[in-house]
């Protein structure tokens, strides 16, 4: 709730306007039965035509007048709500983007999406719906009692008997319902997680003929959802059927009987009784959909708690106090680096040291899972090392301004990722880069050939994840993306793994030119691509076991030699 307050505070003026509007509207509404009472007792029953007409105008005025504060307050409240929702969403989105990668590997995407979209929407529902409704309920309930006492104190005192019943119904029943609905919410969340998982794996489910099993599992959850809905609805219905109508008639019948007695004693009028009948109608309104309000508030409270927890996630990789800024030159040095992924104990990098002089090309080779990708990720400070340090231009990367460090580098990730948008946007990533430069980069990596054949060339739409391109094509585009950003450090993580050797060679030539003057760190399983490297590091279980140029390593007759021989040995 503190969280919500922080945002609402910014727009307090709208909140105040909304409440004033609401107050006026309810006042207008409640004054009418009072005037009708006067009309009946003083004018109609006394056959005073002139007075009656005057009174009628007043009543008419108030009736129509309700509309103005009504629309006004509803507008103010909605403006407030939408502004608050936007602010929360923007803050959450920014917060998410600032998180380190660990956050993303431990939080399912579905959860992130739900927090920023649905959970904020529940908060909006409450801000625009339940909270105003509750405020208005409080106004109505107090207002009605005030008017009841104004109309006829004795009759009001008699009706006061029902007040505790109203209170008990409103509070007691609501609590009970709340638990039922919170169960429903849990089942719904499970339903959501399951459908997300199914939808992202349909081909695999189909080809391994697991459709019936997956379906049955989903059906079980859906049935549970149905049953818990049913239960909650039934109890809500019992509550609604009993509370509203029965309470209302009991109070109205009381008004008539007790009113009759009082009229007999001369301490009440017919107008009083009529006014009571109307006011009682108003009084019942607030408890009619109390269950809805409770559940909405409950929804929002738990949503706010989840949002709060989301905002408290802190897996930032923080910048230093006075970070070093500027563009890196490209001299990289690893000094006895140790690293274990957060949440695990096992070190996957165990004391790696090497240096890459400016403009040199360093290659990493090794078994799969030996830590090559990890080592590259560390250079960009996606994670902080546990021991040792990495230096760029002789400055510990923890002293660098993160954005500057990363801007100086360009990376082709092992798994290329494309966004929904045009090919061109995917290469420039929204930067203002002229088309010629984009084409030039694409030509160098031999992506231009296939792009120009696409229906709309560089403006062809790519689906999210690059789903309508082949894996190799995705890789070519991410290569072009890296080149177009003119980095001083180039990081290639198996950038040509899904590309045939012939195209690979052509790309190699294109890259040679680009790599001049830039420091390059590259991972490759195909040793042919790295023979020209200035230095080759052989990694095994997180350690550098051999280091040297191609020729040196071959002479050593170690692991590299073995791998190399294996590669050239015929497949038979």
């Amino acid at each position, binding site marked *: 709730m503190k969280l919500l307050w922080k945002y609402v505070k910014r727009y307090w003026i709208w909140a105040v306007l909304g409440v004033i509007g609401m107050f006026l*509207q309810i006042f207008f509404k409640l004054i*009418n039965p009072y005037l009708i009472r006067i009309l009946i007792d003083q004018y*109609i029953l006394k056959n005073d*035509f002139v007075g009656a007409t005057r009174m*009628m105008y007043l009543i008419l005025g108030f*009736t129509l007048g*309700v*509309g103005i504060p009504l*629309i006004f307050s*509803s507008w103010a409240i909605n403006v407030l709500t939408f502004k608050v929702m936007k602010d929360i969403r923007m803050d959450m989105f920014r917060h998410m*983007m600032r998180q380190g*990668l660990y956050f993303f590997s431990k939080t399912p*995407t579905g959860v*992130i*999406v739900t927090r920023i*979209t649905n959970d904020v929407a529940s908060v909006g529902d409450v801000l*625009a719906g339940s909270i105003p409704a509750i405020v208005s309920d409080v106004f109505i309930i107090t207002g009605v009692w005030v008017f009841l006492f104004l109309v006829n104190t004795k009759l009001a005192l008699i009706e006061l008997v029902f007040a505790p019943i109203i209170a008990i119904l409103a509070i007691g029943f609501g609590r009970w319902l709340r638990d039922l609905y919170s169960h429903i919410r849990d089942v719904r969340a499970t339903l959501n997680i399951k*459908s997300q998982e*199914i939808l992202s794996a*349909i081909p*695999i489910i189909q080809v391994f*003929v697991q*459709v019936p099993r997956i*379906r049955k599992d989903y059906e079980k959850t*859906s049935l549970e*959802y*149905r049953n818990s809905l*049913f239960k909650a*609805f*039934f109890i809500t*219905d019992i509550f609604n*059927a009993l509370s509203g*109508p*029965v309470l209302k*008639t009991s109070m109205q*019948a009381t008004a008539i009987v007790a*009113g009759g007695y009082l009229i*007999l004693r001369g301490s009440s009028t017919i107008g009083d*009784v009529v006014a009571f*009948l109307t006011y009682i109608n108003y009084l019942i309104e607030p408890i009619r959909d109390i269950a809805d309000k409770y559940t909405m508030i409950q929804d929002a409270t738990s949503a706010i708690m989840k949002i709060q927890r989301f905002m408290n996630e802190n897996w930032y990789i923080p910048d230093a106090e006075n970070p070093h800024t500027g563009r890196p030159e490209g001299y990289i040095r690893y000094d006895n680096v140790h690293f274990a*992924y957060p949440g695990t104990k*096992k070190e996957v990098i165990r004391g790696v040291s090497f240096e890459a002089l400016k403009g040199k090309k360093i290659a990493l080779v090794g078994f*799969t899972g030996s830590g090559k990708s990890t080592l590259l990720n560390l250079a960009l400070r996606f994670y902080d090392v546990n021991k040792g340090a990495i230096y760029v231009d002789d400055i510990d990367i923890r002293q660098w301004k993160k954005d500057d460090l990363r801007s100086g580098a*360009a990376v082709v990730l*092992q798994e290329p*990722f494309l966004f*929904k948008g045009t090919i061109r946007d995917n290469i420039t990533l929204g930067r203002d880069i002229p088309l010629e430069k984009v084409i030039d980069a694409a030509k160098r990596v031999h992506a231009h050939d296939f792009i120009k054949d696409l229906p709309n060339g560089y403006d062809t739409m790519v689906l999210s994840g690059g789903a309508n*391109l*082949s*894996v190799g094509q995705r890789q070519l585009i991410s290569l072009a993306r890296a080149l177009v950003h003119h980095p001083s450090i180039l990081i290639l993580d198996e950038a040509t793994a*899904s590309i045939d*050797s012939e*195209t690979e060679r052509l790309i190699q030539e294109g890259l040679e030119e680009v790599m001049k003057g830039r420091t390059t760190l590259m991972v490759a*399983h*195909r040793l*042919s691509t790295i023979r020209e490297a200035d230095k080759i590091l052989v990694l095994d279980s997180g350690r550098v076991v051999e280091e040297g140029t191609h020729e040196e390593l071959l002479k050593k007759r170690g692991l590299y030699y*073995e*791998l190399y021989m*294996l590669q050239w040995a*015929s497949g038979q």
Partner: protein
Amino acid sequence: MKRLFDYLKSQWKKILIAFIALILVDIMQILYPQYVRKAINLIKSLSTDTDKSYWISVLWHYAFIMIALYLAVAIFRLVYRWFLRTVAVSYDHQLRMAIMDKYLSFSERDLQKFDIGDLMSRLIRDTRSVRRFIMMGTIILVDLAVLGGMTIVTMVSMSPYLTLVSVPPMIILTLFVLWAGSYMQKKFKVMLELFGEMTERVRETAVGIKVIKTFVREDFFMKLFEQINDRYIGTGVKLFTLQSSFWPLSSVVVGLSLVIVLWVGGDMVMSGKMDIGTLVSFMMYINMIAWPMLSVGMFITVYSMSKSAIQRIDEVLTYEPEVKDTGTREIEGVSNITVKDIKDDIVLKGVSFSVSKGQVLGITGPPGSGKTVLMKYLPRLWQPGDGMVFVNDIDVNDIRLASLRRHFSYVPQDPILFAGTVRDNIAFARPDATEEEIIWAAKMACVWDDIQALPKGLDTVVGERGITLSGGQRQRVSIARAFLAGKDILILDDPLSAVDTHTERCIIKNLKEYVAQHSPLTIIVSHRIPAIHWADYVLVLEGGKVLEEGTPEELAERDGLYSRLYRYQMGGDVE
């Protein structure tokens, strides 16, 4: 929509009971003001009446009747709600399963026409709107007809004149409601779409975060997100201001009717043409008739929301999936696969080949040459044209889908892993597999050593899409999954792209052993020559056509792409 009516028809008994209960409720509600009228007239005559004890007993009598009436209202209301709820909530579940069944029949290409987030919301949010519509819709319609009709009859019987004058505002109300309804429906649709867009934006940003971070594009993505939010506010404020003031605003119109009744009726009372009790009960009736009138408004709100939802659900339910399970033939065992001049509108321009049981077909070719697309046609993950793909010389389109797919083990190019344990992932096709079998499969895929080194071995949770595994580990888990499935046809699409030479050789060795022992029909797509050079036959694709074909030895000799690739990779220029 039609589906909904069919369903409602099948539930007619429950609906009938509900309607009867609802009508009873309405009748009793109409009787209520009559007793109020009598009571008030009684009170008024009181001052001149003398027999007080008689008077009091009558008043009590009325009061009891009033309470009894509403107790009955409560009970019957419970009855009709119970039945309608049963109908609505069961439909909700049925609808959801129908949608899910549809999704499960979608091909990848069908799925690409939608966003996943959007498809999810159809399963839960949209079905909820339909459920509400059934509940509210039926109640409101019956209320409108029964309560509205009977109230008007009663009012006319009490005073035709007064009825006539109080009606015009109600007409205004109806017009207003109609206008607002259509306006709101349009805006609702926009809101739903914007919300979907926003959802997709967040999802994509989270999935592509690594790219965004490496290129320091956070600000740009922030801007994109803000743009959607601003559009959302623009539409939202207007729509919700109208929606939330809609209901109370309608009651202003009702108030207007009341004032008219009071005005005209007051006149009539003063001139002795009507008694005060009638006037008060008349006002109650106006309130009562206002309810169905207002509920027309509510109906329209609910309807406009559910109409978009129903449309969205209909869109997927009537969607014709690319792959239809219309085949009826069964196949036992697989002796061969034949592809005859397969063409499509994406990339393939006439590819033919034939493989038999025990044989290995290798396929290679530059990126985008159509290798993956070709593979997807075989188990009909995508729909091939008629007369193009045959298994055991039967057109795959004539074979029952499950009977066809039952024979495939597939290693897709993107290894799709689930957010479960390594064990769940390997045993996906065979949930009943024993521990030994799983270990055997992991060893076959040369990933067993890696798995043992993981924090919890086979029970390590791999995170979404297998995010906590290295690229090569992910790929090999997917290979192990296919080995464990152990079907007659084994398709491997670029299975070695992310592994080192040593592991590559290990997998190829195991694969050869496996083929020798089980003699499945094997197709390997790869850029790696060692992975296909042992095949019985090799196709080299380019631009959707077969560029070269033959035994690998022939191709290596012949001057062409294959021989060049062979030389690059196996040229053996060591000393």
